């Protein structure tokens, strides 16, 4: 019989306390792993992916607010910019392409954005990925071609159970109680294939439709033809790059010029979004602290459980000594038991952590439209297992030392 079998038999003998200790470790590991995975995925999505937008040309105001509104369909745009200014910027050699948009409308809690029709055909939300309504890609119907037509993002269609041909009345605003354009019946003519981006949570209508919605004033309605006075919420810009991903140095000058003007500002998501994490970083830290406390409490629980079972096992360990087991073997057996419990806890916690991540992904998808993955390999995947084993070893040290010091004869109590 090998020592591993002795360890496993002992664990089986004290299954309840061993199981509780393993589960408490699993909870700590799961919490830390889920928090880390979601945090790293969010950080990556918010700061690195950029959703295909190099810069947002928007009104003066909070850059973070503009980025959240333009890219993630959150917040509200703090103002509008002139169409002519957008055209001037788009003509700058540093700008590779631009797509105007207007935000501020909604339907059933989802944003209704007016966009240039070429946004749906030419814009790459990820390198090499454009919007599609092809059934092969998971979409349906066609892109809009008329004033009273709309296409819905995949998540909107799924959540609302939309059917092609179904009509809706957009709300003039993004909060409950805002007025509804009751006389504007816009039909869904297409459902976009899933993109795994916030675009899945938006409804798109033609840019010109915004101006002609009933209830907007005459001056707004005139903007459909009067380009000199037309206003838009902003524009997604693709900037000129050199040597792969690096921006052309002229971009900095363009950004300076725009930001110095009183007409608009150029918001670079890659610069702005990390600020969001500075703002909400405390939430992350609190979750981490909770996870660490759970893990430390789990380690303490493991130590107590081992000490408690050690009391029951004193005679067993003394008998092993009588059979020839050395003190260091007994020390190793107890430590191996702690390691086995920690390993089991870490493995269960790893699975549980990814399950929690999966649940988190579901909510993130529902709230932001961004696709996180359950099996994302975060730094915690690589770090938590060894950390749990180290913690388990530390927790097992005290009971192992107690077992090492066990008095053989005093425990066996020979009588004559």
């Amino acid at each position: 019989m090998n020592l591993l079998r002795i360890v496993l038999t002992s664990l089986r003998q004290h299954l309840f306390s061993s199981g509780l200790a393993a589960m408490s470790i699993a909870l700590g590991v799961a919490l830390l792993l889920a928090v880390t995975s979601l945090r790293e995925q969010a950080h990556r999505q918010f700061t690195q992916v950029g959703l295909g937008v190099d810069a947002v040309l928007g009104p003066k105001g909070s850059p973070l607010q503009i980025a959240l509104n333009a890219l993630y369909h959150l917040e509200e745009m703090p103002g509008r910019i002139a169409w002519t200014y957008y055209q001037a910027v788009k003509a700058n050699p540093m700008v590779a392409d631009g797509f105007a948009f207007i935000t501020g409308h909604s339907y059933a809690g989802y944003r209704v954005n007016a966009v240039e029709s070429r946004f749906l055909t030419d814009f790459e939300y990820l390198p090499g990925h454009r919007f599609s309504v092809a059934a092969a890609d998971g979409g349906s119907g066609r892109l809009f071609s008329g004033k009273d037509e709309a296409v819905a993002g995949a998540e909107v269609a799924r959540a609302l159970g939309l059917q092609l041909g179904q009509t809706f009345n957009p709300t003039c605003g993004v909060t409950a109680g805002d007025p509804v354009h009751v006389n504007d019946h816009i039909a869904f003519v297409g459902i976009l294939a899933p993109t795994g981006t916030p675009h899945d949570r938006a409804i798109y209508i033609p840019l010109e439709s915004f101006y002609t919605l009933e209830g907007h004033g005459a001056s707004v309605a005139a903007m459909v033809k009067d380009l000199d006075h037309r206003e838009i919420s902003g524009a997604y810009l693709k900037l000129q790059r050199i040597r792969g991903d690096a921006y052309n140095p002229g971009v900095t000058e363009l950004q300076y010029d725009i930001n110095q003007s009183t007409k608009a500002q150029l918001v670079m998501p890659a610069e702005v979004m990390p600020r969001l994490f500075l703002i909400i970083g405390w939430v992350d830290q609190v979750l981490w602290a909770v996870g660490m406390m759970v893990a430390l409490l789990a380690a303490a629980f493991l130590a107590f459980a081992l000490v408690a079972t050690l009391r029951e096992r004193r005679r067993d360990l003394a008998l092993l000594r009588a059979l020839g087991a050395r003190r260091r073997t007994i020390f190793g057996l107890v430590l191996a038991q702690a390691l086995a419990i920690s390993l089991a806890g870490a493995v269960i916690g790893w699975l549980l952590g990814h399950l929690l991540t999966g649940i988190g992904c579901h909510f993130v998808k529902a709230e932001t439209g961004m696709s996180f993955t359950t099996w994302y390999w975060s730094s915690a995947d690589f770090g938590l297992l060894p950390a749990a084993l180290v913690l388990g070893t530390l927790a097992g040290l005290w009971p192992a030392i107690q077992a090492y010091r066990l008095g053989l004869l005093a425990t066996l109590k020979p009588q004559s």
Partner: protein
Amino acid sequence: MPSAADMPRPPVIVIRDLRVAYTSQGAVLPIVDIPEWALPEGSLVVLEGPSGSGKSTFLNVLGGLLPPTSGQVTVCGVDLGTLDEAGRDRWRADHVGIIFQGLNLLQGFTALENVMLGMTFSHVTGSWKDATALLGEVGLAQRVHHRPSDLSLGEQQRVAIARALVKRPRLILADEPTGSLDPRNATDISILLRRVCADHGCSLVMVCHQPEIAAHFPQRIAFTTLNRVSPSGVAP
């Protein structure tokens, strides 16, 4: 020419000037003081004596569980005084089988696993088949996979005997193995122990309080004739 049976057998235990004493609150309490004693290989002896006469302490010294205060103790050809604690553990694992009065078995293990534990820490190799055969030899062929809680005290002692034998030791030390058994079981166990030791060619030193059990042994030694310390703790 003398036959092999008539040849003097080498001793399995040699004692010279053995002294064991405990220190309590600054006072030295002598427990064992044996000037000289030797036990020939293959002997089956029972040590008799009143409680407190030092029999179990003596047995612990022979098993390497307790280092003597002074003197030389050579068991199975090894001077135990030359070994440190780890060395004595290793030596015990290889050469000596020990049976205690009760609670001899590890509760979470089956009878067979308990027997296999007898070899786990030794250099002796043996198979599960050997252990199963030994359990059959002590009358537990049908109880191989039972846990101690499913066995009677007598059956548990049989498992302990099988475990002591599994590593094919030269010496078995039994500290009142029948002390917690009813008379019939006690007699059966003592007879079994004597028989299997004889069959396997190993020596047996057994401490016993029960004269009716000791009566089954060919060689009975009154411990007081070996130990110069009286049960009241008076040294010579």
